[in-house]
């Protein structure tokens, strides 16, 4: 039932590196950033315990001077499908811990893995990241219109959401895990946790120069689950009536078989 986790086959599609650095003097903002995956689908099996996903990319038309000074920065993000979440708080009620207050959020990325060349505050000002909604603390955690009691509780729970996600390892930020391998080629190491949600994930690369955001590029990745267990899971969700009847049938057969095997009457 369990297969080795390493079935993820992102085959290596090594393209030619184009050293297209023509001698164009001043015109800035020529730099481009590209990332890519050789496959658009990853299937993970039930034995999957989480892994690292390495994304390669290229920075083209870079200014050699700025590059030597190491003032290009890249942030790569892999963002999972958007879902609605409820954050709840327990309080003591006659000695018993009871879920009391809650806030509902919508369009929240179910997973979020970030890698950057340096720590975010060294790359640009918080304002820049805020405008880009980049980073666990800058994502816009949108509450459901009537999903919260007061603005105070909204503030409190908005702080807890990323903390809980980080604790579940569904969100992660890895500083220094984007590394330049040459003047143009870079490598980003992202985390795919064991509980990575299935669905469409978007990988985005953000290019910064001297603390200024230049451009981004993105590509998408589909994560699907494979194996018997996930076929069962799908059956339970898509054909729930048949699944329920089958569960009853199995129980009846087991009970009947047990009687047949062990009793003689």
């Amino acid at each position, binding site marked *: 039932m369990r297969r080795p986790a390493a079935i993820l086959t992102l085959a290596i599609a090594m393209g030619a590196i184009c050293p297209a650095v023509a001698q164009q003097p001043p015109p800035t903002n020529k730099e481009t950033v590209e990332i890519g995956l050789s496959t658009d689908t990853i299937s993970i099996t039930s034995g999957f315990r989480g892994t690292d996903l390495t994304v390669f990319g290229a920075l083209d038309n870079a200014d050699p001077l700025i590059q030597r000074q190491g003032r290009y920065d890249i942030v790569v993000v892999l963002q999972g499908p958007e879902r609605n979440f409820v954050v709840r708080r327990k309080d003591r009620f006659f000695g018993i811990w009871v879920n009391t207050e809650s806030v509902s959020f919508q369009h929240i990325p179910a997973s979020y893995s970030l890698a950057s060349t340096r720590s975010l505050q060294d790359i640009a000002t918080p304002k820049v990241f805020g405008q880009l909604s980049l980073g666990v603390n800058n994502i816009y955690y949108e509450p459901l219109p009537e999903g919260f009691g007061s603005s105070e509780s909204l503030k409190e729970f908005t702080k807890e959401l990323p903390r809980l996600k980080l604790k579940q390892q569904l969100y992660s930020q890895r500083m220094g895990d984007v590394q330049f391998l040459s003047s143009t080629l870079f490598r980003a190491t992202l985390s795919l946790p064991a509980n990575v949600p299935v669905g469409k994930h978007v990988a985005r690369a953000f290019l910064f120069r001297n603390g200024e955001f230049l451009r981004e590029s993105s590509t998408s990745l589909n994560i699907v689950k494979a194996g018997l267990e996930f076929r069962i899971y799908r059956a339970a969700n898509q054909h729930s009536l048949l699944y329920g009847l089958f569960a009853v049938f199995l129980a*009846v057969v087991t009970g009947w078989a047990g009687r047949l095997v062990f009793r003689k009457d």
Partner: protein
Amino acid sequence: MVVLGLYRGTVMGSGFKLGVYLPIAEISVNIFVLFFMGAAVGFLSGMFGVGGGFLITPLLIFYNIPPAVAVATGANQVIASSFSGALSHFKRGTLDVKLGSLLVIGGVIGAGVGIYVFVLLRQLGQLDLIVSLLYVVFLSTIGGLMLYESIQAMRRTRAGQLATLKKPGQHNWVHRLPFKMRFRASKIYVSIIPVLVLGAAIGFLSSIMGVGGGFIMVPAMIYLLKVPTNVVIGTSLYQIVFVTAFATVMQATTNQSVDIVLAMLLMTGGVVGAQYGARIGQKLRGEQLRALLAMLVLAVGLRLAIELFVTPDDIYSITLAMATGAS
């Protein structure tokens, strides 16, 4: 431009060879732990003649199975043990089909209401709490009563008297209710109102707690409806099979929380355990056996109660907003 991706596989955790992934509970568990859990509860149910659902669900919760899945799968598991029991009673003729069917009608209504409440509680985030509270109340009440009764019986035996169950009185308020119906197999003439209400109450508990409800049904039938003891067990099992089957299908369609893999492990363990339990049970003395079960029931209840009072590691929690599967 380079377009290239690479996967770096990690080494899987070793020493987890017996692990099996539960597709609905979404956790990896040890096959043998669950098999033995099923066998142990099956053993007890064979020994004491109880369904075992009221032990399985809390044990699963202790083993970190989400309560919603534990309840739904518990109901599924109960079908197996009840079905083989009901079949034996049917063959021996110790089953009142008419009374049982009426209880089923009540049970289906109760289970339907139970599922509705279950969904509501899950949306409110109070399901885990209510399930635990219900278990604490039922387990401590039943365990306490059983312990008291068995100690009394042991005292009487020591005093040289015969240990017999108290003879129920001839008539009570139940027999003054209208809409009476005659049940030939049970030799009773009773109003259908208490029958339907009793069935509905048991059905409700099957949905919310994942139990068969035999531990309430049997005494209620004896003391309230005055059904003769020889048909009580068979009729109760008959009702349990249908109501837990209905609850399982309802759980599967509304909450998608029935885990077939988990249920199979528990059922196979349970079927094996029940056979040995029944053999041992015939050799042991009734009162001592009941005292033992009572203490076990009380211990499980106590463990659940303690958990309600202990400060959680994290007072905040996050869940998917819709009632479709846990995250």
